[in-house]
């Protein structure tokens, strides 16, 4: 056990701290939840790229900083920004998913055209993966792309396309080979959201906001060269990106920050003459959550060490999404309970706390438990890949159909 990073890294940490001290005031105020970054956020992004605090390992010729990959330095950057409460680089789906995919599998032309403006926040992307009939079983997607002369003609529907309203571009999985086995008939296309035939409808969720959209395609014509990878290889192209998405939902710094906000809330909320934290039952739950947050923090350090050694990580890594999303949800749940009746206030009500953020989080985090691979799919993955348990045998028909047949 050695938690020292060494002099090179201590110096690097100091450098990040100095940067935050001298430039931190230029960061956009608060968390910028808007899909289209503000001018302020774009300027901040530019400054961060110049200093190598975001887009760090992306080659210079594509608009990045061009540093050698160094997991520990990336971790130090994330830690210091989080500690200072200053937003780091833009973290949208274009940057986290499309850019790594293009760098790995795109053509030279695609890389030159799209990576830099995406990094700079000039081009906003949305992701067209899930469909109403293809959620956990994403590979069963049906949106079709038929070859017609030099175009694909796309028809179908996508769902959960966050930022589709604001996006300039979409990276989208479509079925190009109707007769191929399901994993082999998919292609990965990129096209403009201004293409005729695209309709975006906001999808209002339980939070009362439309954080997502449904996107409909009717005879949308996309030139065939706007494919990433080969025809029929889209499933594998997309899986390369899903790998890059890893970690986005299981950020231990975010959990710690939410937890500290919860402690503060419980110290400030009054129940009669006392504080919420003076209630022994609530306080017991708080301490229990703190231990869980600590466990996930150290689990994250263990994964980081494994990565540094080139070790794939195993069980410690497989459980992160399941545990972190549930824990985040439980932190919000305790906040609501600590507020008592105040906890139900929402929609800008009088006496509402923190703009209803705890209620919004509580509901949205339930969405995160479901999205990005449901908790149940995560458990399958843990059992099958982590514990080497057998897969569920495939049934041709639902059991009810079998029963009816038997009765007949």
């Amino acid at each position, binding site marked *: 056990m050695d938690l020292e990073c060494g002099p090179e890294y201590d110096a690097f940490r100091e450098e990040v701290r100095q940067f935050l001290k001298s430039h931190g005031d230029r960061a956009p105020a608060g968390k910028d939840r808007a899909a289209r970054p503000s001018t302020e956020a774009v300027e901040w992004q530019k400054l961060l790229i110049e200093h190598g605090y975001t887009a760090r390992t992306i080659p210079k010729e594509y608009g990045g900083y061009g540093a050698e990959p160094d997991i520990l330095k990336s971790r130090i950057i994330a830690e210091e920004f989080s500690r200072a409460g200053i937003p780091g680089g833009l973290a949208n789906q274009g940057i986290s998913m499309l850019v790594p995919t293009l760098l790995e599998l795109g053509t030279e032309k695609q890389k030159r055209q799209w990576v830099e403006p995406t990094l700079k926040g000039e081009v906003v992307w949305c992701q067209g993966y899930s469909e109403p009939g293809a959620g956990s079983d994403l590979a069963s997607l049906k949106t079709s792309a038929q070859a017609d002369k030099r175009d694909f003609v796309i028809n179908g529907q996508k769902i959960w396309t966050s930022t589709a309203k604001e996006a300039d571009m979409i990276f989208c999985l479509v079925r190009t080979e109707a007769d191929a086995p399901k994993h082999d008939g998919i292609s990965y296309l990129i096209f403009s959201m201004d293409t005729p035939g695209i309709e975006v409808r906001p999808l209002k969720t339980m939070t009362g906001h439309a954080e997502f959209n449904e996107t409909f395609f009717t005879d949308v014509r996309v030139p065939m060269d706007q494919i990433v990878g080969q025809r029929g290889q889209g499933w594998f192209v997309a899986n390369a990106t899903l790998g890059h998405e890893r970690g986005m939902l299981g950020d231990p710094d975010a959990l710690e920050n939410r937890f500290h906000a919860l402690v503060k809330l419980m*110290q400030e909320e009054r129940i009669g003459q006392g504080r919420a934290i003076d209630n022994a039952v609530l306080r017991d739950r708080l*301490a229990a959550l703190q231990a869980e947050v600590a466990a*996930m923090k150290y*689990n994250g350090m263990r994964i980081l*060490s494994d990565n540094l050694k080139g070790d794939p990580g195993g069980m410690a890594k497989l459980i992160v999404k399941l545990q972190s999303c549930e824990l985040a949800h439980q932190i919000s749940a305790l906040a609501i309970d600590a507020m008592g009746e105040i906890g139900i206030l929402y929609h800008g009500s009088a006496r509402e706390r923190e703009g209803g953020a705890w209620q919004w989080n509580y509901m949205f985090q339930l969405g995160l438990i479901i999205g990005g691979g449901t908790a149940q799919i995560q458990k*399958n993955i843990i059992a099958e890949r982590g514990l*080497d348990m057998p897969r569920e045998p495939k049934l041709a028909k639902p059991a009810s159909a079998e029963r009816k047949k038997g009765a007949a």
Partner: protein
Amino acid sequence: MDFGLSQDQKMLRDAVARCLSDTCPLDHVRECAEGEASYSDKVQSALSELGITGMMVPEQHDGLGMTLLDAAVVAEQLAYAVAPVPFLASHVLAPIALAQAGNEQQQAEWLPKIVSGEARIAVAIAETIEARDGAGVTNNGGKLDGTALFALEFADAGAFLVADATGRLHLVPADAEGLKKVPLTTIDRTRSVGELRFAQVAAEPLADDGGATAARLRDAGRVILAADSIGAGQAMIEKAVDYAGQREQFGRIIGSFQAVKHMCAEMAARHEPCRSLVWYAAHAFDAAPDEASLAACHAKSHTGEVHRFVARTATEVHGGMGFTDLLGLHYWFKRIGFDRQILGGPEAVRAEAATLQGWIHAA
């Protein structure tokens, strides 16, 4: 930076695991647990040969002077094998106490005997956490009165380390006049606890440090108990997965049913982060004293909660067989139950964690 076990610690882990798989099969555990002498001399002497008995004893007293993280590595393996041997009190807590607060004569007399396995020292500090049944020991001019419950590694102990009401520790030989020893029988037959009744018992005090050594023992004890739960939980999860991979019902391996598979996944998902939590707590004990108590509280309470779930869920995966004595799964179940209650259950430990952070206003 390297968060995790060193190469040496992995070798230690593997050596202890091999030693236990050779000397401590479940049949042997059963023999000990069902017999009169609860501890296994055979396993104890094999561990002694590896240096485990003296691992926490400073080198100048013939020990190996190892760290609490090393001890946690061993504890995990002992629990994995449900080994009926003394470890926590005699080979971890007593050496820490004597090294920190014992005088030269006490160290010279007891530490080499701990290394050789000649003598064991039981530790009774339960009342520094919470007094049950009115227990508690007072020190009246060097003579002890009162009762100490849950002296750990009670059977055949050569001496007892007992905390008085101020938290100061005293060394009491097993044959001291006025000392009455009453064994307590617990769910866990692989370990031994008992009650000490004092009537004007002459004792040798350790340094009067305002309870600091007793607090160190609580921290260390909690980390070791948490590590023990992890080892027992690991064994139970492996057994559940193994059983689910063999047992067939409805023409299928039951492990292919998601209802069963998800129980196993939930156990693994909750169990795995505990390992990092306990490693960190052990490391804090060794290297970050300011964080040690809080980290030990988190490790103890959280692994206690998680492994209660693991113990019952792994048993359920085994169906009716899990409930029988035949399979012996209950040895691990009970080991986890013991770990959870001793040195403060989760609620008591969390209250302590809250106090440590100033979450509770002094009334």
